């Protein structure tokens, strides 16, 4: 019994001595998740002279982004302007709230509709995404871009 206690004691002492403090790395921005949101954040941070690192728990971007079918609800994009589509931000906002049965966060939805036009243009200009057609969604009145 005493021997066992001594063994346990020595084991725990050895274990404590064997655990060094975690290594430290310093960046400007730590980004969790290598999906659309995280990678966009990383690219934009870099382009604003902010040094980012992306941490991903899986061995590839395994979140919902890779399941997306390739459409994005947007207004005010260059493509829509070119095609003469003039849906307003307010109309898109109203539709998104309606589609979510008013469960969406109004502040987030407002931020989305205010910026999604320039963001889609950014995906084209900076990332090289090619949007091929402007489509319609049956549930709502706005005309989103379809990405292929």
């Amino acid at each position, binding site marked *: 019994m005493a021997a066992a206690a001594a063994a346990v004691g020595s084991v725990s002492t050895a274990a404590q001595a064997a655990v060094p403090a975690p290594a*430290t*790395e310093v*960046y400007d*921005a730590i980004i969790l998740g290598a999906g659309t949101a995280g990678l966009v954040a990383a*690219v934009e941070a870099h382009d604003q002279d902010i040094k980012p690192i992306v941490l991903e*728990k899986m061995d590839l971007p395994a979140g919902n982004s890779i399941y997306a079918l390739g459409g994005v609800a947007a207004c005010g994009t260059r493509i829509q302007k070119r095609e003469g589509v003039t849906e307003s931000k307010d109309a898109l906002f109203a539709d998104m709230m309606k589609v979510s049965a008013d469960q969406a966060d109004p502040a987030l939805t407002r931020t989305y509709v205010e910026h999604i036009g320039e963001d889609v243009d950014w995906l084209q200009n900076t*990332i*090289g995404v090619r949007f091929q057609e402007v489509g319609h969604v049956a549930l709502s009145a706005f005309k989103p871009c379809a990405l292929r």
Partner: protein
Amino acid sequence: MLIRLLLAACKKRNIPILYHTKAVELITDKKMAVTGVRALTEEGLVDFQARGGVVIATGGFSANREMLCDYMGGVMSRLPLRGSSYVTGESITLTKPLLQNWFTWTNSTVPDRLGDARKPC
């Protein structure tokens, strides 16, 4: 396709992406402002200190039945899983010790300048 293009854009900019790296704790200072992330890597724990801020871009919790019951309830918590089975809301859980009023989704944006992301909302 979108992810492939984004990964290419990151590679072109030499942005480090560490896979098999799981955030296990948000590091905070004595005022409870988030200053970094402790993560489990294949080599063990590493503390990633953030001069500007931490962006949680890990999506929601659609593959976490318990969180769906807690936060959505009703029929939403019984829907069959659509999409990834790895969207488990673990990083959202990391913010819980900071108390709810220390965290809003507005933290999940790239700061316009260094330091902004540290301000509690």
